[in-house]
């Protein structure tokens, strides 16, 4: 019976058989849709190790290929997430890394993935959605801004596919288009003393803080390709962060009307500020892994009084893995919501 099911599975999705191979454990967990609320102590162990094989109860090591059949079923049911990662993310240092833009288009659908499309003509009709991920470490705010402007211009004319920058900033306060200086509670001199920068931007949203241990994603994607408006897009960014929080057993939720962002209770764990120009997005989301929350005391975060800020570290009971792993998981949550079936890691 089990072998019949497996045969059926392979016939439907020949490429899924390779799915488990070469995938970092962090991404596999996102695919499995596992949350620690369902998990046991083993979940905790798994989350705190990077790219390590499964450990069985008897202490033996389970190869990825020998994952139980039930896991394969789960992977398959997470469509359209099949044949996605052709190159697993490589361990990146957190040193500032500024990749020069190589605007090579992803190869055609016929050759992408570890699959041959012959077996599944239905699958061919699925829209090919490519995402390119830039893992960048710690980046100065203005440099990241300039890079986004350049990439957005390239994306607009179709030179590059949908791209997402994954990075952290040194201590930086930023204002949105409305320039709500009144929500900055200290003087510019005080900012200098504490070693923080202040920048005005064209994004939506109010004042916020970015700093080390806060995961930032700047997706530069075409909303017109998917018929999305600002509202759907922002809901997608909220869902991305809510999904990630759930991996660590944290129940986050979107804010009420007018309070865009991701909350745990009445504490904000994730912020959003976006710019859409000619249907191309820039800026994006900021998710607090474990930043120094004292920096938020110098502003009225997002212009909302009487609500606090929090972080994943504060809200979860689990041990957290390295920031890089959490960044990868965040990207996978994003890729899942926006239905990318091909993710390329730079």
């Amino acid at each position, binding site marked *: 019976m089990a072998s019949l099911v497996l045969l059926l599975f392979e016939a439907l999705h020949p490429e899924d058989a390779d799915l488990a191979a070469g995938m970092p454990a962090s991404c596999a967990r996102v695919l499995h849709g596992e949350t620690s609320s369902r998990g046991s102590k083993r979940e905790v162990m798994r989350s705190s190790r990077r790219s390590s094989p499964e450990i069985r109860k008897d202490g033996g090591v389970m190869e990825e290929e020998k994952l139980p059949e039930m896991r394969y079923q789960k992977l398959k049911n997470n469509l359209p997430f*099949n044949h996605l990662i052709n190159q697993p993310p490589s361990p990146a240092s957190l040193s500032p890394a500024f990749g020069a833009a190589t605007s090579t288009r992803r190869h055609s659908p016929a050759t992408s993935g570890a699959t041959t499309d012959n077996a599944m003509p239905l699958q061919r009709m699925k829209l090919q959605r490519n995402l390119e991920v830039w893992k960048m470490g710690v980046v100065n705010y203005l440099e990241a801004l300039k890079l986004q402007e350049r990439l957005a211009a390239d994306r607009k004319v179709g030179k590059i596919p949908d791209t997402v920058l994954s990075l952290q900033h040194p201590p930086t306060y930023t204002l949105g288009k409305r320039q709500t200086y009144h929500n900055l509670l200290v003087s510019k001199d005080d900012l200098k003393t504490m070693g923080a920068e202040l920048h005005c931007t064209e994004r939506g949203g109010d004042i916020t803080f970015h700093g080390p241990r806060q995961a930032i994603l700047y997706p530069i994607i075409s909303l017109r390709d998917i018929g999305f408006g600002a509202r759907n897009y922002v809901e997608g960014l909220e869902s991305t962060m809510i999904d990630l929080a759930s991996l660590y057993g944290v129940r986050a939720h*979107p804010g009420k009307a007018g309070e865009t962002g991701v909350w745990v209770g009445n504490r904000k764990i994730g912020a959003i500020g976006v710019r859409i120009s*000619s249907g191309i997005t820039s800026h994006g989301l900021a998710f607090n892994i474990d930043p120094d929350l004292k920096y938020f005391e110098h502003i009225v975060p997002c212009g909302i009084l009487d609500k606090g800020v929090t972080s994943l570290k504060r809200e979860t009971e689990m041990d957290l893995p390295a920031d890089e792993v959490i960044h990868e998981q965040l990207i996978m949550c994003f890729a899942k919501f926006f239905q990318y079936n091909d993710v390329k890691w730079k």
Partner: protein
Amino acid sequence: MALKLWASSAANALKISCSGARAPPLPAFSLSRCFSSVLDGLKYSPSHEWVKHEGAVATVGITDHAQGHLGELVFVELPESGTPVKKGGSFGAVESVKATSDVNSPISGEVVEVNTKLSETPGLINSSPYEDGWLIKVKPSSPSELDSLMGSKEYTKFCEEEDAHH
């Protein structure tokens, strides 16, 4: 939100044999999208702005479809009178749900009037996108540009096709 996610994974789970289909995110406002109003007598751009040409002046705004996709507007940035605008070029921006979206002009010309009510009440665009929520009035420099814009039937079809990407 959680219901949406659940519905999405349930839909995925049930589509075992129809792997060609993508489960859409099932946005809650999809019903209202079907009923976005499109007025006859106006011309429409692919970036969801409308223009009404009356004699020497053309009024420009964003469509019902656009305001629905944006969400509640909280801020509008408009140019000053006298500013030149170019067809397809950005002349201002609107903000909703922490997202600023550029607004583009469907025609070229010079801005002669700006809707100052919007600085106090940006929500007029949501409640009355074709009337009280107008954005700018333009003196067109090449009225023939209007001919290349979409009519109401074309624009309705355009919206349907764009939304079908979900």
